[in-house]
């Protein structure tokens, strides 16, 4: 049985008139890599700061290693943070930065030296001991910030968009390194990002956050394949959201009336009645396209846009009721031009019912 290392219980927080966190509940197991995913302003940084003790919640409790630390000062918590701005001490060398927490704990000099050398090796910064932070590149500063935070061997490592300031290539490389580091240290990571790709790539579990609430918590596969709400489906992997009315249900097979046509969908364990309104999430790569003359099936649509980006061709359709539907294909072209009529559809198992956005 996994051990719960961190538990957030009904956390609320208000700044002035703004309710930043409405009701945050989260249980983190030892050794997990949890990502808080959400757009800016959703409260993810505030959640992290509450765990670190840099902010006190208005309500709720924070349990760390089975101990209530809600009102404990940050220096008394066995939690360390990698700050978004890195927050390296500019008047200290790399080695002094990393040794800071050990010195405070009055660890003897020889041990400090050994520990500092070993974490600097771990983050591939051997030989940088005597450099000042101002002499390092962004990526190197990032590594120092990580080294400084893990040298203390915290119960939980908090990372606040640590890769936000790096370029794409370095980001990808650091994602992998962080993942390896987490496994190697067997440390619990709580990671903040607004980048869904990063979240899907790194995490054991993802908590999608919106307006101070967790919209859905689950593994990357769960979040991607079975989004609970339209928001999650759109935010993670930008799915199409299609509104329809249920015609019939036969086990998991749903027949839905969509935009003047008929489509199929897959119900996991939900039960629907005929005439009930429903919201479907369809990933763009799952949208099927046919020439109407050849195979008149699915929904009638018109191509309104065609663009090529990042190895994927993106085709935008307009359905008869005005709904836009995005399809994506590998390759560089497809025999449809803007203005062409097309029949679009999807396989039943690729249309998932989600909770509609209010």
């Amino acid at each position: 049985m996994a051990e719960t290392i961190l538990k957030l219980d009904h956390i609320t927080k208000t700044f002035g008139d703004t309710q930043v966190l409405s009701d945050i509940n989260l249980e983190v197991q030892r050794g997990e890599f949890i990502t808080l995913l959400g757009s800016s302003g959703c409260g993810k940084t505030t959640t992290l700061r509450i765990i670190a003790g840099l902010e006190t919640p208005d309500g709720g409790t924070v349990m760390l290693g089975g101990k209530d630390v809600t009102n404990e000062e940050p220096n008394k918590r066995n939690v360390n943070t990698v700050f978004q701005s890195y927050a390296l001490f500019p008047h200290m060398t790399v080695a002094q930065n990393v040794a800071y927490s050990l010195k405070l704990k009055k660890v003897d000099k020889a041990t400090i030296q050994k520990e500092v050398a070993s974490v600097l090796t771990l983050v591939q910064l051997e030989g940088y001991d005597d450099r000042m932070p101002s002499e390092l590149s962004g990526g190197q500063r990032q590594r120092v910030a990580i080294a400084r935070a893990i040298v203390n061997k915290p119960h939980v490592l908090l990372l606040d968009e640590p890769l936000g300031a790096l370029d794409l290539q370095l980001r990808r490389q650091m994602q992998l390194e962080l993942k390896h580091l987490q496994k190697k240290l067997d440390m619990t990571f709580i990671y903040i990002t607004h980048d869904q790709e990063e979240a899907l790539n790194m995490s054991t579990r993802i908590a999608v956050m919106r307006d101070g609430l967790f919209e859905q918590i689950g593994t990357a596969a769960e979040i991607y394949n079975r989004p609970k709400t339209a928001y999650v489906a759109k935010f993670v992997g930008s799915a199409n959201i299609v509104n329809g009315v249920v015609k019939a249900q036969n086990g998991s097979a749903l027949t839905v009336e969509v935009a003047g046509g008929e489509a199929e969908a897959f119900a996991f364990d939900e039960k629907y009645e005929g005439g009930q309104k429903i919201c479907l999430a369809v990933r763009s790569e799952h949208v099927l396209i046919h020439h109407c003359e050849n195979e008149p099936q699915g929904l009638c649509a018109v191509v309104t846009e065609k663009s090529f980006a990042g190895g994927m061709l993106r085709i935008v359709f307009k359905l008869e009721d005005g709904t836009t539907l995005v399809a994506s294909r590998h390759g560089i072209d497809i025999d449809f031009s803007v203005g062409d009529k097309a029949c679009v559809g999807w396989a039943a198992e690729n249309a998932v019912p989600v909770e509609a956005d209010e």
Partner: protein
Amino acid sequence: MKKKSLRKNGSSWLMLLPLYIFTLLFVLGPLVYMVVLSFKMRADVWGVLDIFTLSNYKNIFEPVYLNTFLQSFKLAFTSTVLIALIGYPFGYFMAKLSAAWKKRMMIVLMIPFWTNSLIRLYGWIIIFRANGSLDKILMGTGITSAPLKLLYTYPAVVVGMVYALLQFMILAVYSSAEKMDWSLVEAARDLGATSWKAFTSVTLKMTLPGLMSGIILTFIPSMGLFFIADILGGNKVVLVGSLIQDQLMKAHNWPFAAALSVVLMIMTTLMISLYKKLTNTTELEGLL
């Protein structure tokens, strides 16, 4: 590229010409004149004789003048320590205020500057003199039973110095605390530092340039602000500044006044270079 071409056809040199002339005329000229003057001999009645002498500098080593230097140092030191103790927390907490309150505090700090400093000093006479405002309050509340007779004492001069120079310290500390990245303090706390330890190991170090320039901006003037010593200290406290003024205006010993000024200037320069060495900066935080 543009800058280079400008420099080549010499127009930038022309633009700088007024600056050079101004500097030569109003900064370098008087300075050279003062140094030259300090090596000349005083005429018997009025003016200066063109005879080279070192006697002006030798004069400084007479006990009475050395003592003046020592007293000035003591007063400057006392005032500066007090100013730092009051001004540092003031500037520090001011930097932590909201933007609106920062503006308000800035105005509060600036208002006294709208009144002539001499007039503000006379205000202190009203407070300090026997049976003045301070005595009335203290005696009225029964804390003291007789007038304190604070005016024309050493403490009165110290208070005057602190009052006149406190703003410089506050603004210097404020400007460096304002620029500080407060997430560094959070990082320190996060890494296990108590709030006091985070202050001493991070905040203090980061605001040290401000504190140091505050010290320079108060220490140096407080050696020379003779009118404060004159007005609040009577003739009991004589500073280098008063000495120079007396030699210049009353004794008409210009060469000696010049020599005193040169020595004071050398000490000031030494202090500033010490500051640069200690803080690794080339500019004074805040005001210069």
